[in-house]
């Protein structure tokens, strides 16, 4: 497949990129790693007027420690994220989930920010960002703004960013001590999209569960924060019965899609099973 014609811009600086995006109008697309955009271009489902390639911009791949949070540059590749000592030390859930993204070749090109900006509810990272209350750092010629994960994922493959806004990085608060994490991905083959995924963080307090964060992949048009599960498990015992009872709340408020790989009904069922497993693993 061959993409339709487009203008190609490869700015050398972030300022140039933001300006280029602003100038290009709403039918421009940003090329981060190409993991999702390249197939869309080749299938001609995406026919942008202009493509703004962030590949050469200095500093966008940086991952740094800001004290109580880690800021991951939008252009950090999945491969880089998985191996990064800060991510491994402070955000093991991200490292674990990223390890399940696509295949090694794609993980060397695909980027953390690109995956999130694509806002595919079947992608693994949106649910993880949601569970970790990540904050999206966005820039345009109009200035900078921060968008919390709870507001970032608006709808199916749609984020809260305006067409002229660029995702620069993502600030993820460190969970701190006492948290266990787990990403439970359910897919038919190793490289397939998750039919359902569960991103989970649990803070144990002796035999009980003090706090929990649970977010679901591919259970609706956007990642779903499973608030009912969190409420049900918080402050209770870390027993299998309690976990199962809480996990039974996972489908609450979700709108799982029906597609070739699973019906809505099946996804709802899977969410309960996988949430229980994720909680168990994270609480382990």
């Amino acid at each position, binding site marked *: *497949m*061959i993409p*339709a*014609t487009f203008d190609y811009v490869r700015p050398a600086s972030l300022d140039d990129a933001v300006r280029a995006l602003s100038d290009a109008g709403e039918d421009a697309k940003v090329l981060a790693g190409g993991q999702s955009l390249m*197939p869309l271009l*080749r*299938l001609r489902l995406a026919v942008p007027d202009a493509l703004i390639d962030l590949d050469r911009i200095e500093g966008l791949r940086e991952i740094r420690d800001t004290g109580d949070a880690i800021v991951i540059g939008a252009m950090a590749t999945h491969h880089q994220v998985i191996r990064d000592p800060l991510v491994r030390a402070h955000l093991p859930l991200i490292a674990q989930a990223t390890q399940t993204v696509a*295949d090694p070749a794609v993980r060397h090109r695909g980027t953390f920010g690109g995956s999130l900006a694509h806002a595919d509810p079947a992608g693994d990272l949106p649910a993880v960002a949601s569970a970790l209350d990540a904050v999206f750092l966005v820039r345009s010629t109009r200035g900078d703004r921060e968008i919390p994960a709870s507001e970032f994922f608006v709808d199916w493959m749609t984020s809260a960013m305006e067409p002229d806004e660029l995702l620069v990085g993502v600030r993820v608060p460190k969970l701190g001590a006492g948290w266990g994490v787990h990403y439970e991905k*359910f897919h*038919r*083959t*190793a*490289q*397939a*999209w998750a*039919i359902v995924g569960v991103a989970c963080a649990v803070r144990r307090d002796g035999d009980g569960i003090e706090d929990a964060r649970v977010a679901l992949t591919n259970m609706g048009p956007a990642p779903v924060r499973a608030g009912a599960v969190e409420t049900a498990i918080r402050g209770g015992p870390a027993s299998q019965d309690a976990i199962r009872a809480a996990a039974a709340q996972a489908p609450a408020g979700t709108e799982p899609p029906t597609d*070739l*790989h*699973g*019906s809505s009904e*099946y996804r709802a*069922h*899977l969410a309960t*099973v*996988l949430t229980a497993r994720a909680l168990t693993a994270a609480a382990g």
Partner: protein
Amino acid sequence: MTTQEVGSPRKRSEDARLITGRTRWTDNMTPAGTLHVAFLRSPHAHARITGVDTSQAKKSPGVVAVFSGRDLAEEQGALPCAWVVTEDMKHPDHPPMAVNEVRYVGEPVACVVDRDKAAAVDALEEIDVDYEPLPAVVDMEAALAEGADLVHDDLGTNKSYTWVFENGDLDAAMRDAPVVIERRYVQQRLIPTAMEPRSVLCVPEGDEFTLYSATQIPHILRLMLAMVTGIPEHRIRVVAPDVGGGFGSKLQVYGEEVLALLLARRLGRPVKWTETRSEGNMTVHHGRDQIQRLTLAAERDGRIRGLKVDLLADMGAYLMLVTPGIPLLGAFMFNGIYKMDALSFTCTGVFTTKVPTDAYRGAGRPEATFAIERMMDELAAELDIDPIEVRRRNWIKHEEFPYETIAGLTYDSGNYEAATDKALELFGYDKLRAEQADRRERQDPVQLGIGVSTFTEMCGLAPSRVLGSLSYGAGGWEHASVRVLASGKIEVITGASAHGQGHETAWAQITADRLGVPFEDVKVLHGDTAISHKGMDTYGSRSLAVGGVALFSACEKVVDKARKVAAHLLEASEQDLEFTGGRFSVRGVEQEGKTLQEVALAAFLAHDLPDGIEPSLDSEVTFDPENFSFPHGTHLCAAEVDTETGMVKIRKYVAVDDVGKVVNPLIVEGQVHGGLAQGIAQALYEEAVYDAEGNLTTTTMADYLIPSAMDLPTFTTDRTETPATSNPMGVKGVGEAGTIASTPAVVNAIVDALRPHGVTDVPMPCTPERVWRALRAESRPAATEPGAGGGLGSAGGDQ
């Protein structure tokens, strides 16, 4: 003469260039002045073409020409079907490019020829086609109903043919049978998915044409192109350069190949087309797609009385090269390795508005093997006999060969006991059964199932007379020639057409041994009709069992010719010469001798040859086998089934295959591994899905799931070796064995795991959701389970 090459696991000499891609893939070749073709394809499953406006596209940059089907209607002819299975078979016209009506999504309706490949694709957007949509026909059973919408109006029916084979008294076998099992299985539609997409390049030179194509069948393609276009056969040269897999999908005469030839003729310039993956998924012929209704009658002790097979086979929209015959190849395999008194086989070919089906790895035989191997497990369950035991009670014993089966074939050799015993040992059958019992006892959410598949297949296609009796449009021989060069190096030319199998290595091994020359001294040539003038090409696990044997015999001929020259040079009688290690010597006087190379040079110089001897050691042989070959084996699969999610994980897989004598164990191992992956994929992953409107929804690999090494277990493979008696090498063929055997082994394992839950079938592919749904349906009576294979019943006497 040594045998150090044959039987040695030599690494394949062709792999370095194939793996790196630094070779002659068709798409790698772009002669100066090449024009690029892009096809506009029907988005409709079924529609009348009411207008094609190409005027805007003709103004697009770089465009040399734009053609609709109507523009080419006079010269494009019709795509051939070479297997007319019954006299009254309905055989619709099949233009390479649609003229009046489209009948599947992806059917070509127009094409752009452009100096630039990307610009050609852009120009497609400028073609405006008007369609009048017609009803899609996607369901075979509905297609046969009274008043159904028709795929081909002029045929008056969606039925292409009904073909029947019967032997033995089925009524008697069924009458009063103590056990009768009825099942309905669906062989889902599969997309062959060769690694290299289709690609064709046609280079005109005056009124002659060289057509490069990623095809399995350069020889058959040349003849068919000549017949379709009227260009004389000797003016067409077809080259299959390195070809990256086919699995049967390149055993075809495609419209794009015919059109490339016609466009090159019209425009007088080289034209090239290479499909994209999503284009290929829509337009490469598909495989399988059958509905099987089976009735098996047996005694209480498990002995089979008879089997009734009623098939619906989806032809798709048209009959392509061997479309109608593929399901019939299975007719002779439904009895498997078992003895029975009666077999009845009926197959009805049905037209639908989908891409045509045709040969796909195994071609009719995997479907049949699946059916009988699933039925054997159902029989075992019904009688509460171990599935291995019920097979033992029915299979042909090793001392009974040769054995004429109820399907009329003569199995020349085999030893099912030996293969099964070996498999059971490698598998740890008893231990896994114990674990299964333990998990059942504990009500473990992850249940264990054990699946058995004791299969055989007919391959080495095939005796020409048999093919003739089946109205197949060609013979089943194969050709080989050996050229002995002046320096003593050897060129081998084979009519088999390798597309990833490793012929260059295996053929050199055979030649090295027969002629006593170093492996490195042998060059194998294939896939070019100007070099290999005769051939029946590669499919149906036939290369070694037919083409390899032809080479074996051609080498013997070289030795015979060389012997005459050597005898003359050594002043000895031919009878006194022995040929060992590439050297002729006089028996008893070992120091006196001539190497083959010396004899070759003498023949080349021709200064001193005996009277009546031509100055050449070259030979050629066309071999027509007297019988099929019958590889067999026992495959055992242990599958863990997560009853909470429906996920199936293969825990252990043991394949013991008997493919007769082995030329290169490494190649055999590779064939088995790849075959297993493909057969397991049918069981668990792959399915071409058309929606109710006839749209193919699995056009990309995001939806058409192919397993990778990540998804498959480590296979345990081994062999037993019972030589074929139908050829002098004792070889049988291995190209399809893994695919044929593994699908039922996996599904049997899944059903075995869930049988205590009342599950008697899971439709393929056994996706997690389907397994989950099968479990949820367990409370319902099996007989009313939709899509779950019908009821398990027993009738008669002793109840």
